[in-house]
């Protein structure tokens, strides 16, 4: 048995300012069993290998999402209850919540949004080209997904910038420092009761509440209307369930896809020969989308808590122990991906965990994100757009999402 000769720390947010700490994760993957990772006076079991993440992710009976929290830190019972969403729940509660919205996100129904998405992508890329390049996040990666998700939700598009800004504050909440005062946006709620411990969650709750009032009086064929009126076993979502759901869809529907689109541009700029391959053979586009998702690994981890005594990879896990699945490591596991540090747009199969490791919590928006990324690439191919990055991208200090705040990109053709 290889013993842990080092004390890993993959939780410091600043560590991610240069991207995923691949070397540390490689060391952790080489250790037999799961690695005990100290954290805030306690610790968690770190699952870094693809196979172990898969085992934990698929076993939602032994590894709970509802106990403790799905982020690294524990929440008190009242906070957990106030913040409970699809993500922090187990079956049958999870299944009940998920079925409220899952139909809107099936691949078949996502196809209905292709034209809307293409129009948005075309507008953003045309702007980017007309300006001769610029901040890819501001011009393309942020506006495309937020405008798509707001259209699906039925939320006014003029509020896109505000909702992107609020999402950025939420990401801050996963780091060590927040720039917002606790009473920002008129917040009076204790921060520990708010998702991401952020007053921006209060702002999103309030915003969602206003949209709710509008839709209650004037229902439409949109996702917000569905959230308000959907009945499961004869019951509608409670106010708290609605608020958390609204916030989750806004956040997850824009931040993660923005991250994927940011990394896509950076990866293609850094690997012009791969981009050329795709330009030469656009039929590679589906595998290209998957490889860029692997590369981006937008959400870097999720936590579970052992509901019973368990064992993974020979490591005994006691009931109540935290177990953290590091997708940002599993997606670069040399046991599964040949030359994982090489971007290969034709990689197939590509069993990456950009949408989680499988199981009932598989990303609700997976097919929406894939569709958006594919359309963006199609439109980039159509424009024969060749990019290069100027200077260094500004990354979000977060161990949770591999966010990019800005990246200056120029057109090299």
């Amino acid at each position, binding site marked *: 048995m290889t013993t842990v000769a080092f004390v890993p720390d993959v939780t410091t947010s600043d560590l991610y300012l240069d991207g995923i700490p691949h070397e540390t994760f490689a060391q952790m993957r080489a250790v037999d069993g799961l690695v005990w990772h100290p954290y805030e006076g306690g610790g968690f079991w770190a699952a870094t290998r693809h196979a172990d993440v898969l085992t934990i992710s*698929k076993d939602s009976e032994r590894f709970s999402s509802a106990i403790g929290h799905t982020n690294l830190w524990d929440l008190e019972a009242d906070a957990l209850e106030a913040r409970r969403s699809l993500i922090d729940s187990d079956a049958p509660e*999870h*299944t009940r919540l998920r*079925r409220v919205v*899952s139909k809107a*996100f099936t*691949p078949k129904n996502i196809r209905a949004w292709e034209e809307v998405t293409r129009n948005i992508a075309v507008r953003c890329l045309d702007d980017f080209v007309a300006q001769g390049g610029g901040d890819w996040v501001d011009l393309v990666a942020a506006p495309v997904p937020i405008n798509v998700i707001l259209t699906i939700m039925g939320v006014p598009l003029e509020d896109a910038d505000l909702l992107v800004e609020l999402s950025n504050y939420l990401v801050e909440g996963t780091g060590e420092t927040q720039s917002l005062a606790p009473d920002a946006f008129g917040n009076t709620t204790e921060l520990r009761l708010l998702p991401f411990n952020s007053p921006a969650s209060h702002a999103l709750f309030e915003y969602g509440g206003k949209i709710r009032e509008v839709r209650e009086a004037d229902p439409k064929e949109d996702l917000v209307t569905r959230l308000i009126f959907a009945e499961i076993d004869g019951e509608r979502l409670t106010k708290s369930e609605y608020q958390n759901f609204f916030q989750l869809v806004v956040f997850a529907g824009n931040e993660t896809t923005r991250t994927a689109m940011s990394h896509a541009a950076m990866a293609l700029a850094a690997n012009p020969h791969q981009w050329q391959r795709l330009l030469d053979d656009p039929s590679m586009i589906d595998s290209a989308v998957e490889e860029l998702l692997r590369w981006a690994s937008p959400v870097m981890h999720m936590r579970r808590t052992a509901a019973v005594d368990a064992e993974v990879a020979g490591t005994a896990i006691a009931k109540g122990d935290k177990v953290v699945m590091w997708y940002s490591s599993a997606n670069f596991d040399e046991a599964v991906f040949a030359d994982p540090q090489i971007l290969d747009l034709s990689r197939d199969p590509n069993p990456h965990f950009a*949408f989680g490791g499988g199981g009932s919590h*598989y990303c609700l928006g997976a097919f929406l994100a894939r569709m958006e990324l594919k359309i963006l690439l199609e439109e980039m191919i159509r424009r024969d757009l060749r990019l290069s990055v100027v200077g260094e991208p500004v990354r979000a200090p977060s161990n949770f999402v591999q966010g990019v705040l800005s990246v200056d990109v120029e057109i090299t053709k």
Partner: protein
Amino acid sequence: MTNDTKGESLEPGNARVVVDQDKCVGVGKCEMLEPEAMEVDEDTAIASMIEGTVLPLERAQKLVTECPSSAISIGDIEGSQTSQNVEQQNAEER
């Protein structure tokens, strides 16, 4: 794809799949892979195999491995000894 334990003792042929209603969370991957055979119900958001359809065993097994929530299993394979599964299922549908 041939290492499925259920597949080993059964001869290749057309198969039906069964969706565990408690496990299905309506991701819709099955519907995407096999639009002619699988559908997610508009109201319940639960997937099922369209009545009267079958799939080549290999494609049915792909559904089993691709389902993110592990809700799909092989129900019956034509020409095999497990046709009682389908009879049972048909009885339930009636």
